[in-house]
């Protein structure tokens, strides 16, 4: 089975020779459609590096990152940027909503940047807001919404269009436990509808929403849990 996201023996080293820092050391991971994988590990274990590589925001120094059959390393910069805009959604702790745009404009922005017509972009943005249950806030500006509502808009922006890979880095941020749980519920729902998801978190309670939990330690995947399916065929472990 080939996943929406495939990391194959991925290495990421910062610096060279004695000063080299090995952020990731031969990580292989496959995430299928309909699967949510949580990546846990202590600070500095390589979690965010893994997510940046998966999203094409950073390039590996070794190994290969494949998203929906396309090897990111082989893509020219312009094609990589387009793939990022069209197929990959990001949810970060820092919401990054633009204060001068309304909720629907924030969500439509990536589509417009990608060349979609204003009307088509707006229609898709409204659908994405409805998916996260905040269609009624479409005309509001970020400072007119609560933290939880803003995070929903940020998620709508990550899900808008046909993104099949959703990458979330500590997406519940500073939200209270109820609002944070709602965020995970939405992520889960999108994955159940056919997306592949990667959730980076240091909170076990959040990782509990995943189908599979992998632990990163010192740049190596050390363990995984798989309550429903065998891990062996999905996760080839570290250093292979």
């Amino acid at each position, binding site marked *: 089975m080939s996943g929406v996201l495939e990391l194959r023996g991925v290495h990421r080293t910062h610096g060279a020779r004695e000063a080299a820092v090995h952020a990731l050391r031969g990580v292989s991971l496959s995430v299928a459609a309909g699967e949510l994988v949580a990546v846990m590990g202590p600070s500095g274990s390589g979690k965010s590096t893994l997510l940046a590589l998966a999203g094409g925001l950073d390039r590996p120094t070794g190994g290969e990152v494949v998203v929906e059959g396309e090897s990111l390393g082989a893509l020219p910069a312009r094609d990589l940027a387009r793939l990022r805009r069209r197929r990959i959604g990001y949810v970060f702790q820092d919401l990054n909503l633009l204060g001068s745009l309304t909720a629907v404009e924030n969500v439509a922005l990536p589509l417009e940047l990608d060349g979609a017509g204003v009307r088509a972009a707006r229609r898709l943005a409204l659908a994405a807001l409805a998916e996260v249950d905040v269609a009624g806030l479409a005309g509001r500006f970020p400072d007119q919404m609560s933290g939880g509502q803003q995070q929903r808009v940020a998620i709508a922006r990550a899900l808008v269009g046909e993104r099949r890979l959703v990458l979330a880095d500590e997406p519940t941020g500073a939200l209270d436990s109820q609002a944070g749980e709602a965020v995970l519920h939405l992520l889960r729902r999108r994955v159940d509808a056919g997306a592949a998801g990667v959730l980076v978190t240091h909170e076990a309670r959040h990782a*509990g929403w995943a*189908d599979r939990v992998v*632990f990163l330690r010192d740049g190596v995947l050390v363990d995984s849990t798989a309550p429903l399916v065998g891990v062996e065929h999905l996760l080839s472990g570290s250093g292979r």
Partner: protein
Amino acid sequence: MRTAYQVCILLAMSIRHGLLALLERGQMYGYQLRSAFEESTGSTWPLNIGQVYTTLSRLERDGLVRSLPESEAGQRPYEITDAGRADLALWFATPISRADRPRDELSIKLALALTTPGVDVRAVVQTQRSATMRALQEFTRLKYASDKPEDLPWRLVLDAMIFQAEAEVRWLDHCETSLVRHRPAPSRPATHPEAVDRAGEEARR
């Protein structure tokens, strides 16, 4: 699984008050009590009918419930007494003492792992974390599936198990960090006379 074990102990302690709480709603016979009990715990904590009758007879002996005449169908309903109501009110009003809870086998196991030669403590931590994480995923799945308003009591029970499992994982993370920072010396360090003298000298300065 430790969490499930804990739940069982807790359950044994609270069947008595669970039955009293159910009887507070109105009189019931044994089988009704059993199904009402299971319903209130999302059908995942089965109670055998023998436990129900044993508990009822103890409650009756203590004057907290009384049995009523058998119905024509041969079922004997029970009702709560005033003493039973007082006992139930006291139970709700009293916090559960941490001392009443089962001893934590896991922390004892880790403490022993540290001092037992040949045990890979990090492996013990990792094995436990995986198991607890799996339990956490299972509880979360059950919770995700229970989204009807009438599921609220069950969701709160699941939340309790989720938070307990989370606490355990956090504690295991903490243990791991401590293990990384503190490489234990061999269990019986060879004391070097000179080293002791030097240390003694430094201490005297």
